[in-house]
């Protein structure tokens, strides 16, 4: 009998249909119809994902082969979906949170014209479709299609309001930064094909194909794949696009930051965990890059005043955490953090969208304040998100963050110290954000104050659902030292990471140490939270920053450095090529050919005299020449 999971193609099919319908019919459909199609498509695939998840949970994993996608020589690349523990979990996150974001968007984007409304939902569905393809693909090529698809869709959505030049630039920036990473991904792919002759996950990770790879091959491939991941998942040095991606509508930010896109890199590394476990040097690099990104982004977030920018840098920082987890070999912790982060970051982005909606488009937190009086649901849900990301015990962020830090401690106490410091910074800037926005007194104009209101139900319901998830989401991964055998996520994902566990030796930290670390970090975080709350409720940070604060507010001048080191020289080189090489060399060759033909024609003109005698003479002479050649020079 055919495996029931063969039906998994339905999951990406619904968003694709939604994309086609909304994309083609955007001029004819009403807004409510567009919203229904867009959200309904995702809801349908969420339903299928749930069914798939329970199938997988009951032990049924499957590679659904549909047709041969590419078949060249010995290389066969099938179009196939791999349904296992890892992908089914990601499917739930993507479609579940994706659906909430779609629902939210129906209200948030309601002021757009129907045509743009349709375009928006078409892009959103395409985005989810690409991400599903990325996660479900059973080989690197299908994954790469999705990988490029989310890059394209992020470009389209970040530049959704394309009338603003600045937004288009942000969109191009995201696209180009991603392309740099994609190039590395492609090279890794070619390398892999060259050495093993296959790209299918199960075949690549089999002992037979791994034996064909030398240590150097594995190091190069994993390093290149990691460069690809730094582009997609916004790590140093390719992270600068993510904060600029705030140019898009707020639900898009939520979609990019929480459910899709940025988790692609983490998914890819988790998927290739066997390769990474065999390349310890690359693992160390990943851990260091992740840690550096987490710290850098957290410091930048301290001084940002745009509500979405703070959240954006917090995403970069949290992604750094996930890479730290990957680099220290705690793959489960990374996937766990992807999940919990998806809950609370989507919650906070949608919450900030609700705030921006109420403030009439204002994003500067210095002009907000005291919003808790006006927006009760947004206030409470946003607070839940902040508590979760700060790592307050009992909420989801606590469990995943604690697991990552424990893994870091087992590898190196230095990693742990920096990680904990970053966690404290995170708690600080999140509560700076919260207190400045929702506490104290209102600092905006009188008109804005009059306009303040709670958002409609389509926006608050997703907030409530996500807030509940942010609270309970962590209980699937209760650490071993609190309750033995309660880490159901680890047990669930065990088959995926089993080969890696065999390669990596388990670092063991005693339960007493873990208790000590957890209690110590919790007390420190609580202290920071209380300090930030009281300080910024009373006296918000309104002054222009000075000294180091100014450097942080200007994001360590990284954009300026990139501009000076890469963009400007490239522009110069472009100008040089345009002015010198293009005009002199290329045009010179092209015009030279024309001139040569012209000149040659003028010189040979006398031959065409019309004199029959001359023609005959030439003919005879030519014949003589041919005879001579034939007789005397033939080999």
């Amino acid at each position, binding site marked *: 009998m055919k495996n029931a999971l063969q039906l998994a193609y339905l999951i990406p099919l619904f968003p694709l249909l939604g994309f086609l319908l909304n994309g083609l019919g955007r001029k004819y459909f009403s807004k409510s119809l567009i919203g229904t199609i867009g959200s309904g498509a995702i809801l349908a695939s969420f339903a299928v994902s749930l069914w798939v998840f329970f199938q997988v949970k009951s032990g049924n994993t499957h590679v659904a082969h549909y047709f041969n996608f590419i078949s060249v020589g010995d290389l066969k690349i099938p179009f196939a979906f791999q349904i296992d523990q890892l992908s089914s979990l990601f499917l739930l996150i993507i479609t579940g949170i994706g659906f909430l974001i779609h629902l939210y968007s129906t209200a948030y984007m309601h002021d757009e014209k129907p045509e743009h409304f349709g375009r928006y939902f078409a892009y959103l569905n395409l985005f989810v479709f690409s991400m599903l393809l990325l996660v479900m693909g059973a080989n690197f090529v299908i994954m790469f299609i999705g990988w490029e698809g989310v890059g394209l869709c992020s470009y389209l959505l970040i530049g959704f309001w394309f009338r603003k030049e600045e937004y288009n630039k942000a969109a191009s920036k995201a696209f180009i930064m991603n392309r740099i990473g994609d190039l590395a991904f492609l090279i890794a792919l070619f390398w892999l094909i060259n050495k093993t002759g296959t790209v299918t996950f199960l075949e690549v990770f089999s002992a037979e194909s791994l034996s064909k790879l030398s240590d150097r091959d594995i190091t190069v491939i994993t390093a290149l794949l990691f460069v690809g991941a730094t582009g997609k998942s916004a790590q140093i040095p390719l992270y600068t696009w993510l904060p600029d991606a705030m140019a898009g509508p707020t639900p898009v930010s939520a979609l990019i930051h929480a459910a899709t896109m940025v988790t692609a890199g983490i998914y890819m590394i988790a998927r290739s965990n066997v390769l990474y476990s065999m390349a310890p040097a690359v693992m160390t690099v990943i851990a260091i890059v992740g840690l550096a990104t987490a710290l850098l982004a957290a410091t930048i977030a301290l001084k940002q005043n745009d509500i979405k920018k703070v959240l954006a840098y917090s995403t970069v920082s949290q992604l750094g955490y996930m890479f730290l987890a990957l680099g220290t070999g705690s793959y489960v912790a990374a996937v766990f953090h992807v999940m919990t982060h998806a809950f609370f970051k989507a919650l906070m982005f949608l919450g900030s969208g609700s705030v921006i909606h109420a403030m009439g488009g204002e994003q500067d937190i210095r002009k907000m304040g005291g919003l808790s009086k006006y927006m009760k649901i947004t206030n409470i849900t946003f607070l839940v998100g902040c508590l979760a990301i700060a790592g307050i015990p009992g909420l989801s962020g606590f469990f995943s963050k604690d697991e990552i830090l424990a893994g870091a401690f087992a590898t190196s106490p230095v990693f742990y110290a920096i990680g904990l410091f970053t966690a404290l910074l995170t708690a600080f800037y999140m509560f700076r954000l919260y207190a400045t926005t929702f506490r104290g007194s209102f600092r905006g104009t009188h008109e804005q104050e009059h306009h303040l209101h709670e958002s409609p139900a389509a926006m608050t319901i997703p907030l409530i659902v996500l807030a509940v998830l942010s609270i309970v989401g962590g209980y699937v991964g209760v650490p071993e030292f609190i309750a033995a055998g309660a880490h159901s996520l680890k047990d669930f994902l065990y088959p995926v990471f089993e080969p890696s566990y065999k390669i990596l030796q388990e670092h063991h930290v005693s339960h007493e140490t873990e208790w000590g670390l957890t209690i110590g970090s919790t007390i420190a975080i609580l202290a920071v939270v209380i300090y930030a709350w009281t300080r910024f409720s009373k006296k918000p940070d309104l002054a222009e920053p000075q000294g180091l604060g100014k450097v942080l507010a200007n994001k360590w001048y990284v954009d300026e450095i990139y501009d000076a080191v890469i963009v400007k020289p490239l522009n110069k080189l472009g100008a040089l090529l345009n002015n010198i090489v293009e005009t002199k060399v290329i045009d010179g060759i092209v015009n030279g050919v024309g001139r040569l033909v012209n000149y040659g024609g003028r010189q040979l003109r006398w031959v*065409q005299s*019309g004199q*029959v*005698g001359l023609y005959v003479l030439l003919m005879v002479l030519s014949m003589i020449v041919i005879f001579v050649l034939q007789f005397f020079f033939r080999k």
Partner: protein
Amino acid sequence: MPINYYIFLAIALFSIGVVGVLTRRNAIIIFMCIELMLNSVNLLLVAFSKMHHLAAGATPTTGIDGQLFVFFIMVVAAAEVSVGLAIIVMMYRNIHSVDVNFLNRLKH
């Protein structure tokens, strides 16, 4: 008679023909020179045909292909002559000359 004599005669005739075509301007003489070349070739064909026939000696039909060719060439040449002469007559009627150097309209 050795075959060499025939070959030398044919080469001489052919060369005379070529030189005539190249140097003379009178269309009728050029025409005659072309005929000369054709006939030198005919001569060669017949000579070789005969030589092969003698050398093979077995059956009466060996080596007669060359002689058959010659008949074909004569027929074609005769047809060509009639057309060519007609052209020359027309040319004379139009420009009152048979000098080929006046005929440079091919240039255009």
